[in-house]
């Protein structure tokens, strides 16, 4: 059944479905109960599933993730909400040293199906710590899977898949896209959680993006089309693992690649994509892989974020530079 809904609503419906399907699924976090979360992603769930399943936690992120691990050991499938990107760090130790490694530590004898949902990225005019893009800090860590949907349909399905996955999944939600609407077919068989998709066909330059930047890239492609340039947009969807095959196929066609993300470029995800695709496509590339992203600076105050965030112009500037080779 296909419905039009916003990303936020798609996530809400997806959680509802998971809670309905499996009594072991729990939702935990700060203010996820009566309030429905600061972004209302868990709206109505407390009312319908009760405080036994929708758990308002103490204000302690390490505690949230640590107890989620314990609940997973007991057979539950906790879906943790971290309120904002900048507040995941108190839980970083539990995520990196415990959640990521316990399955290996047990030689596979236990599984930790924990999903950690993190609204991330900028563009909503917020104060410090509310606009960050820490995805590579997780994707670098073995044992974690890291994904980020860019649209309502992926929000719905990828969250289903993340909850069904027996591995810990860090689920980055593009918060400034929460209110963007799109079609969601709640019956379609989804593609794999870790597959990239070609969101826009093109022939001249490939743009790779994920989460909030996919929309910017699609807009860039539309703008470029007016100038007679054909950009292909690949929505990566998964940052660990990365579907390099899809990117490679695109780059073998276009021979040029620009990677776009909000996170700082320095040691950002674009570096890995650039390095690996250059290795895979060395004889195909007509230009070095270019990267458009954040600067090596703390995320700036809100009144600077329009300058800071990669927008259409910066993407097209990189496309120009790529084509200039």
């Amino acid at each position, binding site marked *: 059944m296909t419905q039009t809904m916003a990303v936020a609503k798609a996530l809400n419906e997806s959680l509802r479905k998971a809670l309905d399907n499996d009594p072991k699924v729990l939702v935990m976090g700060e203010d996820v109960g009566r309030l429905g979360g600061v972004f209302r992603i868990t709206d109505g769930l407390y009312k319908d599933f009760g405080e036994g399943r929708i758990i308002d936690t103490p204000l*302690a992120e390490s505690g949230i993730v640590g107890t989620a691990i314990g609940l997973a050991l007991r057979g539950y499938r906790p879906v943790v909400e971290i309120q904002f990107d900048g507040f995941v760090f108190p839980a970083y130790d539990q995520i990196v040293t415990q959640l990521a490694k316990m399955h290996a530590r047990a030689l596979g004898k236990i599984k930790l199906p924990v999903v950690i949902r993190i609204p991330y990225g900028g563009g909503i005019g917020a*104060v410090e710590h509310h606009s960050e893009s820490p995805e590579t800090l997780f994707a670098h860590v073995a044992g974690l899977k890291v994904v980020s949907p860019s649209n309502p349909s992926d929000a719905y399905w990828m969250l289903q898949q993340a909850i069904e996955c027996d591995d810990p999944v860090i689920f980055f939600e593009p918060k400034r896209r929460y209110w963007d609407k799109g079609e969601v077919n709640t019956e379609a068989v989804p593609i794999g959680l870790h597959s990239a998709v070609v969101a826009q066909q093109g022939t001249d330059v490939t743009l790779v993006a994920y989460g909030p930047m996919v929309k910017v890239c699609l807009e860039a492609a539309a703008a470029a089309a007016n100038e007679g340039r054909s950009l292909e947009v690949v929505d990566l969807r998964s940052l660990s693992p990365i579907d390099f095959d899809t990117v490679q196929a695109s780059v073998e066609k276009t021979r040029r690649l620009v990677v776009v993300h909000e996170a700082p470029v320095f040691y950002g995800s674009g570096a890995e994509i650039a390095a690996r695709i250059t290795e895979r496509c060395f004889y195909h590339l007509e230009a070095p892989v270019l990267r458009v992203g954040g600067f090596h*600076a703390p995320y*700036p105050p809100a009144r600077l974020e329009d300058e800071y965030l990669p927008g259409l112009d910066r993407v097209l500037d990189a496309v120009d530079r790529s084509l200039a080779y």
Partner: protein
Amino acid sequence: MSVKSTADGGAPAKRGRTTRAAAAKRRSGEPGLVQLLTPQGERVEHDDYAIDLTAEELRGLYRDMVLTRRFDGEAITLQRQGELGLWASLLGQEAAQIGSGRATRPDDYVFPTYREHGVAWTRDVDPLNLLGMFRGVNNGGWDPNENNFHLYTIVIGSQTLHAAGYAMGVAKDGADSAVLAYFGDGASSQGDVAEAFTFAAVYNAPVVFFCQNNQWAISEPTEKQSRVPIYQRAAGYGFPGVRVDGNDVLAVLAVTRAALEHARSGQGPMLVEAFTYRMGAHTTTDDPTRYRSEEEREEWASKDPIARLRAYLDREGLADEDFYTGIDTESDALAKRVREGVRNMPNPGPMAIFDNVYADGSSLVDEERAQFAEYLASFEEDGATAGQGH
């Protein structure tokens, strides 16, 4: 060090005891809540905490609270008008903040959360400074050493460790200053706060941990953080804890003074829990009707800290109409100054992104700065101006 007396809310310096206070405690059903002014504005005595203020000092506290509230209200308005991106109102917590802030000396050092506008006031921080981060032109930006008032800290609980460390430094320096660290009821659950207690206790650091228990952490009531009153936590770390009526500016002042004195005199840390109420929304983006009742709010409105002190001033004839009119005028002037100041607060230019990333510079920042400058310049060459959506 007597854990038991602590858990009962004992003061660091004991004076002669009567049974009166203990009986009052039992009656109120709130064990150990120190109160010097009832909600009706009646002055009561407490065995451990005496205070004797001049009329001028009392009027000063009143003025502080009224001006703070006016400033706060103005900020809410400015947020609604789009001049601020966000505001975290202190409405209802004026006594907790003014009372504790006025207990400090200039050489003491204060570590606030993001809601200590009243404390900032007592530290002579220009209110306009507080608005920069809520307007989105900076992330704080004032010089903490100018008024010994640290930057607002948003990550819950972090600043308690900075305070403990700073206090370790004070002790190392042999200074007799004290450090005052604010945190909320929600923050009490953060591991960092527990670690701050541990460090402060182990190094006997002169820091007072001041918990404003406004009973809500966004939508979560205090029961989601603790099943016993928060002040009791101190005893288990080896220092005294005390709970004070946070809507009673006299009691807060007296208790915080005693606590700072305790720290200053080499007795180590102390925990003060100011029992108060967040009258407004968590921030301007919050909708408290989703999670709490109007009755609860009303009940607390009847305990209003400002009305309470005014009732006392009036009852005792300590202030006249001129005084109140004067404060109204001052409030209007403050509001005007804040309004105009905010509206005239300049946006930083784009190159500010690269400022102050490092004190000693970084070739990487230099490179990115130069590239971005070149990029921006390219628009000017094109005859276009650098617009939205870079």
